[in-house]
């Protein structure tokens, strides 16, 4: 650095001197990313909050200030209240299934065995393939007249050929159907992160536990689980935020139907804001995701730090 400063007479030298300073160089390199994110995440976020207090409609970004009017209207609307509840069900049930399945799978995949590469590839498929496309596949698998799931159910004599379920056509079955697809597509991601958590436990810890006589379930409960927990929780928090704010699966499979029985916050915000053109009201619906986002963010910060400490 000193050598550079000494030759700093020319303009080029001075430029070099400046770029050698850590703080300046860091700011120079980081600011494009920060500016981009501020412009395309920060500004729209502020705009979304502003819009939710106005009666703006499609075609304009401004409207009359209506205070809490939109939120009050939302809460009085049974469809919105349903959407809130469905979002909760969609998220909690699918992620509960994911935790159990991914936990099992990760433990089964941690040791190497013949064919592991191929099996891991097959398990990863649902996460690696574009969900907007595979969800259309499920539209076909759930087809009322030719559902392949029903073919299995009938041939395994679980249901009779006349009593097959209409997976997307009846309210109760529709909710289960979209939850199934969401779980199907999140399991691989959670498995992979859980697996990373298990693999990060040093062999010595395992050995020490074995030396002290901990085996099977005891070892899992008192040794492995606490050590993996922070990473596992981060994976679950991811699953929660990606599921609660996801629009693809409900939009493609049911678009909120039948009779709003699968209407979630995201599909209702889309229908209100884009299809019906009530931008302000749509924004106020989407904004109900903000508390969840805050919760997940805090959780992430707490557990990411804990993961680092242990």
């Amino acid at each position: 650095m000193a050598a550079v400063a000494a030759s700093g007479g020319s303009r080029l030298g001075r430029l070099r001197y400046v770029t050698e300073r850590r703080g300046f160089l860091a700011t120079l390199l980081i600011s494009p990313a920060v500016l981009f994110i501020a412009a395309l995440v920060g500004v729209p976020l502020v705009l979304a909050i502003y819009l939710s207090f106005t009666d703006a409609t499609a075609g304009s970004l401004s409207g009359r200030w209506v205070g809490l009017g939109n939120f009050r209207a939302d809460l009085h609307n049974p469809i919105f209240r349903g959407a809130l509840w469905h979002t909760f069900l969609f998220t909690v049930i699918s992620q509960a299934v994911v935790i159990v399945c991914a936990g099992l799978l990760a433990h089964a995949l941690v040791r190497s065995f013949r064919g592991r590469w191929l099996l891991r590839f097959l398990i990863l498929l649902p996460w690696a393939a574009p969900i907007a496309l595979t969800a259309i596949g499920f539209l076909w698998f759930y087809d009322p007249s030719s559902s392949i799931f029903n073919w299995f159910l009938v041939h395994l004599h679980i249901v009779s050929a006349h009593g097959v379920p209409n997976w997307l056509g009846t309210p109760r079955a529709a909710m289960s159907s979209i939850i199934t697809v969401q779980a199907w597509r999140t399991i691989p991601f959670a498995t992979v992160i859980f697996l990373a958590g298990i693999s990060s436990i040093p062999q010595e810890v395992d050995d020490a536990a074995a030396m002290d006589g901990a085996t099977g379930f005891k070892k899992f409960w008192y040794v492995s689980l606490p050590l993996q927990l922070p990473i596992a929780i981060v994976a679950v928090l991811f699953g929660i935020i990606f599921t609660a704010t996801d629009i693809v699966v409900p939009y493609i499979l049911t678009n909120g139907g039948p009779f709003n029985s699968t209407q979630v916050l995201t599909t209702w915000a889309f229908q209100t804001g884009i299809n019906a053109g009530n931008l302000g009201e749509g924004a106020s619906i989407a904004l109900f995701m903000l508390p969840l986002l805050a919760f997940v963010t805090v959780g992430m910060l707490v557990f990411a730090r804990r993961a680092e400490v242990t």
Partner: protein
Amino acid sequence: MSLQWRHRLFSYGVVVPFAIVLAFPFVWMAVTSLKPQNEVFDPAHTWSFHPTLASWGFLFHHTAYVQWLENSCFVGVTVVIITLAIAMPAGYALARLAGRVGRSLGVAIFLTYLVPPTLLFLPLSRVVAQYLHLSDRLWALIVVYPSFTIPFAVWLLMGFFKSIPQELEDAALIDGCSRFGALVRIVFPISMPGILTVVIFTFSLVINEFLYAITFISSSTNRTLTVGVPTDLIRGDLFNWPGIMAAILIPSIPLALVYNAFLNRFIAGFTGGAFR
């Protein structure tokens, strides 16, 4: 020995059924894509049918599928370039130069990745139409997509750059290299596997994106894959199921193969930023 067999039995006993269930939809897509139109809905032909590639041909010759593939790839490649140009310097600076402030800033940037598009698409739809005048243009997507690829890429790259020994750079600096020179000549080449991982996962994020694409794009020829297939391959109430299945499989299988190949690096970078 017996313990090892028990472990193995447990592994196969769990993994094989899960693999079958999770991958079955793709098997059924492949089977359906080979069926002739008139046998698709016929219960007598559920498993025995006359295989044909007619629907694959239909997809390429009578729909805008190739155009959508091109659009998706064009947007994907352009966004990858923009993302790398902005995220590589930022990731490096956060890993090396900015110290403790850098760590917090890195986490803050990563957290913006959690802000869901479903919260931003309504205001963005107006910004794109009114201020950027990009309605129904692929460039609308190219401008907006880095908003989620950059946070993600900065985080991964930060993790990768942290794993490079500081001594290598110090040696270059002592040999008279400028910091910038050390970056271009030493750090980036060594991080090539990490950078490639970012390229692949950024590209796949872009191919996956649905909400912005369906909100900003309105004409058939400007659609991307994820929006073109569900909106245009369904003619009225007529679903060309074999064609649609082929349309799903074509991008899914290569993406999954590359994904699988780079998965371990991805995890290292993903968890490396925070858990080190």
